[in-house]
């Protein structure tokens, strides 16, 4: 948290300028600055921690009376969040993704989703970003679990700007939201984000050969890199940033299916039940005969130490590997059953 400039651009009114002044911040650090900034105008905001505040949190520093480090008790933190929301507070609760989505899973279900409580669960350490800390600190199942809960909004920002835009929108939205962040990666996309809204996918790049649908900062950056490499091979690629897994922008998925020959999902999550699952469900339900290539965590845990990047590589989550798989798939004759009649 020490890399922040102060006194420069205002995060709320000029987020892009603020991000340029703070080029080293990860999404989870940006979230903390955004919440602290928005809390200046909104006395309803409360931040709960379960001993993973990390120290030096700008919200704690600037709004001490509304910051509660409850101790190591994720389950109780989420039940409490629901109780506080019941009295009119807008409650943000933060912990690591495995603990928020899985240790406290039933609290999320019964204290957030079922009563549609105005609680925002913000979890970092999504995917394998916890890297060498091991699978106890990885979350490769969280999106599937949260997506199955009626009424939840499930979102992952692709970069710092989306983190700020989404944080502002979550505050305005009256209902439960899960925002999944990574750990220390710094993500800044150059693509414009006009019209950003939770639940509305953003087309980052047009193309007709292959449709890459991506989720989260790793998914989107891998998809964009793969698209650039494919372009060099003469394959044009559409890239859609499906930052919100729920509510799902089915129209954007179907539009991509219709405009391209192959769908590819890219996510830092198990290929079962998350983005890959959501896209397959959508195309199967609505009928466009498209093969879906699912890039993501290959349904296995990573018990050995490794950097975030090396773990991602092990699952084929890098631009070159994705481009290669796409080229192989496109060159292979399609199965008869997949041919449109």
């Amino acid at each position, binding site marked *: 948290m020490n890399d922040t400039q102060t006194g420069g651009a205002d995060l709320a009114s000029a987020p892009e300028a603020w991000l340029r002044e703070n080029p080293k911040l990860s999404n989870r650090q940006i979230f903390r600055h955004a919440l602290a900034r928005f809390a200046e105008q909104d006395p309803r905001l*409360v931040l709960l921690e379960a001993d993973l505040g990390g120290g030096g949190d700008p919200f704690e520093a600037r709004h001490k*009376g*509304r910051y*509660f480090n*409850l*101790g190591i*008790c994720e*389950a*109780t933190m*989420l*039940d*409490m*969040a*629901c*109780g*506080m*929301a*019941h*009295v*009119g*507070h807008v409650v943000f609760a933060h912990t690591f993704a495995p603990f928020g989505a899985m240790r406290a899973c*039933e*609290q999320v279900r*019964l*204290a957030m989703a*079922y*009563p549609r409580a105005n609680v925002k669960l913000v979890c970092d350490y999504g995917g394998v970003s916890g890297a060498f800390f091991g699978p106890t600190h990885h979350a490769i199942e969280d999106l599937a679990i949260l997506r199955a809960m009626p009424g939840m909004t499930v979102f992952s920002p692709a970069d710092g700007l989306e983190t700020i835009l989404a944080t502002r929108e979550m505050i305005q939205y009256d209902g439960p939201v899960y925002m999944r962040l990574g750990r220390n990666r710094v993500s800044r996309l150059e693509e414009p984000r006009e019209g950003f809204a939770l639940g509305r996918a953003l087309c980052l790049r047009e193309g007709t050969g292959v449709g890459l649908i991506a989720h989260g900062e790793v998914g989107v950056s891998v998809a964009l890199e793969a698209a650039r490499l494919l372009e060099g091979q003469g394959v044009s690629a559409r890239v859609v940033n499906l930052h919100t897994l729920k509510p799902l922008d089915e129209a954007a998925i179907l539009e991509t299916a219709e405009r391209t020959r192959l769908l590819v999902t890219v996510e830092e999550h198990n290929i079962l039940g998350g983005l890959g699952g959501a896209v397959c469900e959508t195309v199967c339900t609505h009928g466009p005969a498209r093969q879906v290539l699912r890039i993501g965590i290959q349904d296995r845990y990573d018990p050995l130490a490794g950097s975030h990047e090396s773990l991602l590589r092990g699952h084929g989550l890098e631009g070159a590997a994705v481009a290669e798989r796409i080229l192989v798939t496109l060159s292979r004759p399609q199965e008869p059953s997949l041919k449109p009649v």
Partner: protein
Amino acid sequence: MTAATTNARLEAPGDDVLGPLEAHARHIRRLIVRLAATPAGCHLGGSLSLVELLVALLGRVMKINPSAPGWEGRDHLILSKGHAAAGLYAALSEFGFFDSEELIQRYNAEGSRFTGHVNAKVPGVDFSTGSLGHGLGLGTGLALGYRLKDLPNRVYVICGDGEMGEGSNWEALQVASHQRLSNLTVIIDRNGGQNDGPTESILTQAALADRLLMFGFEALEVDGHDLQALCQALEAPATGTAPRAIIAKTQKGAGVPLFKGKGPHYAVFSPEQLRRALLSMGETP
């Protein structure tokens, strides 16, 4: 270390108060027994054990407004042992939140809000409960939320003694104590029974009062069927900033002599069983 037992720190409610409260308890018990005779039956033993707790709270201690259940000045009751829904619904109807005949007709009926575990769609209920170990966390959050707003609303959470096996309760107790939530009162319905049998043979809850005292609560043990003692314990002014815990010693199936102090955890009564239960209570079937 021994927990304090009730002492007369506040003038006890007199007969003029107790008489009507006792009448409420009789009416609620009659209703609960009738709910056991509906097609789906009810968690009978644990509904009957907490009747006096509900009467003391809803009938005297709590600020409520049955005609406007969401009134901002209200105190909150969270029945964490949400399987005792029949007891809570019966009490809420007795205190005017809805009509008792509606409850009898609609309890567990198709499309009814009166589900077998406590449903937040029922007037007077804030949170759906029944999965055990959530009420204390919810109540701790409410209490912290009110304190943050500097409001005087109070929060009462009723847990079962068997329910104290859930670890989340002990998380919440630690937090409530550390945050000094003196606007929170937890009442443990110490009826000694749980789904599969006697609590003491499954997972002992001995020394609950001492444990709560050591967790930083002001802990009291009372006879959970003694309305006077319950009111005293609930209304005693706070002695400091600690939240309060009341261990209410009760009996499953209390108030229905037919059960001889050993009421069933769950019951679906036949018309004949209903008749015998009501007769044993001195009620007209």
